[in-house]
């Protein structure tokens, strides 16, 4: 028995380190110009899935949608104990907004087959929208619990957890199937297992293999596991609903935030300088 759990993860550019060169003229992001990382909250979703599997048994399938190099987050997932990984990759998915993304993910989840739970991070650090989870859940016509900060109890038929809200916490219960978005408060993600790193470090997606033959020189890579790679046809998706053509939102304008010329009054880092600043603020009744 056990639960069939699908975890959705995303490889994201590390938005802490962005240069001007990372933006393309059309306003879309040149992801190749930035270091790519496992979206932080998705690691917490994966951790919950693995924890549930350890308690109840079952199967954890990780899906990511992205370019071939996104296989890295699938490797990271294998290192942490997932059972199966799928790379959803097709040029026709490019330029998708959250609606088109959730449509493609819906098709992929349905292609995986039966499931009890879909887990994903609350939001990705590149788009910061947090919309894909609820949109996917609507498209799958299942219940959703967002902002989950603590999963208290999972049985074969229901899940109880806490949602973090502006007012505090809400203890909620749902049956299956359901989609949960998990926040970073939920758990402490485990580190990769050394044994699993050895076992899976050479996995690659089939497309990479097709045009990168360097792996032939590497003895150990010869036995490399090939990741399932699905394209638009594998999941039976309607191309009109994918990528740019499936996206209603358009970027009208991108403004690089230009820092205004400094008007800051320089205060000397000395007792006198700071003392006169405090006096000035007091006189103006800003403090006091």
């Amino acid at each position, binding site marked *: 028995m056990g639960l069939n759990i699908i975890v959705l993860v995303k490889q994201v550019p590390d938005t802490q380190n962005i240069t001007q060169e990372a933006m393309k003229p059309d306003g879309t992001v040149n992801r190749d110009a930035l270091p790519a990382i496992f979206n932080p909250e998705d690691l917490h979703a994966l951790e919950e899935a693995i924890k549930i599997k350890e308690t109840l048994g079952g199967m954890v399938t990780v899906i990511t949608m992205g370019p071939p190099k996104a296989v890295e987050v699938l490797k990271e997932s294998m290192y942490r104990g997932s059972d199966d990984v799928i790379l959803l990759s097709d040029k026709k998915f490019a330029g998708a907004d959250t609606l088109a993304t959730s449509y493609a993910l819906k098709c992929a989840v349905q292609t995986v087959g039966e499931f009890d739970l879909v887990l994903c991070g609350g939001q990705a650090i*590149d788009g*910061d929208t947090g919309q894909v989870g609820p949109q996917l859940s609507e498209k799958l016509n299942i219940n959703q619990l967002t902002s989950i900060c603590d999963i208290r109890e999972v049985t074969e038929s229901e899940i109880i957890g806490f949602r973090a809200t502006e007012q505090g916490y809400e203890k909620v219960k749902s049956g299956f199937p*359901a989609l949960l978005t998990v926040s970073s408060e939920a758990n402490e993600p485990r580190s990769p297992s050394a044994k699993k790193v050895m076992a899976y470090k050479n996995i690659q997606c089939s497309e990479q293999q097709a045009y990168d033959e360097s792996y032939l020189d590497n003895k150990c890579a010869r036995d490399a596991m090939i990741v399932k790679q699905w394209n638009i046809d594998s999941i039976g998706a309607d191309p009109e609903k994918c990528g740019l053509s499936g996206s209603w939102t358009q970027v*009208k304008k991108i403004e690089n935030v230009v820092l205004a010329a400094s008007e800051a*009054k320089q205060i000397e880092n000395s007792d006198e300088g700071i003392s006169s*600043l405090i006096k000035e*603020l007091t006189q103006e009744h800003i403090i006091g």
Partner: protein
Amino acid sequence: MQSSHNVMVFIEHHDNRVAEISKELLSRASDLARDLGGEVEAVVLTGEEMEEIQDLGRYGCSRVYCVQDKRLANYTSVPYSKALGKVVRNYTPHVLLFGATTMGRDLAPRIASELNCGLTADCTELEIGNHKIKGKIYENILLQRRPAFGGNIIATIVSPESKPSMATVREGVMKKQELDEKLQVEVVNLESDLTDQDVLSEVLEIQKVEKKVDLKSAKIIVAAGMGAVDEKSLNMVRELAHVLGGEVGASRPVVDGGYLDKDHQVGQTGTTVRPVLYIACGISGQVQHRAGMGEAHRIIAINSDPNAPIFDCAHYGIVGDVNQVLPKMIQAYKEN
């Protein structure tokens, strides 16, 4: 179907009280509706009667659609999206607004998916304007501005070909304004067609947590960045906040790093603040942070890096180590 020119606001409420964010949205919606030549409408989904909806007129709202059903007593995704989806389909607003709150961010995407229309998250500015693409001009559509990509860019997003234009809006960025308290609102009570089969989540318990930090109404905020996370600096930040009678704020990395609670977070993903005085201690000043504090009346920036972007929005800049500057400030204040 031909859509109206109306702007519809989803009203969030807690303990039978309308949330502040909803009043902020209604206020902004009145400006948008004026530009569109339409009216402001509100949707209230509730488990019990809410007297306060009679007062929504003062924020410029003309009409409230109210659905009352015991299954709507607590917010849960499926009943709320089903009930709201029906109202939106029937009354076809041009624009549909939600707060970018836990509730709004749960509900809005579900509605957008169901109605198959565009949705823009976490907007900081909304206006009505034109959009030209491939020789075609779309007039009087919603232009939605939001910081994106870690706040390094401001994107203007449009969805001219789907109706309604949907957006979630951050708390605290739109100004609540009461137009006239005598303004009346028309209340339209609608039948609920929810069934018990729609109830897929059960709210077992609601734990209220009083916020330990009240950044929104703080007059003075002393905020710590990654340049002030060592124990000594953090204590200094707390002490300065204490002597000035202010609150302690924090940048996102400080909260993500576990140095201070989320309640302290100022910025795009935290709280938007407008204090009289904001003292940024060791904060580099990422755009995302500045989006949340740039409108402070006075800003003092303290940073050891003279090129830190925080100095660009500060009124006073002190180049130096937080550890050295803060004791001098505390000292100077006490002596003054």
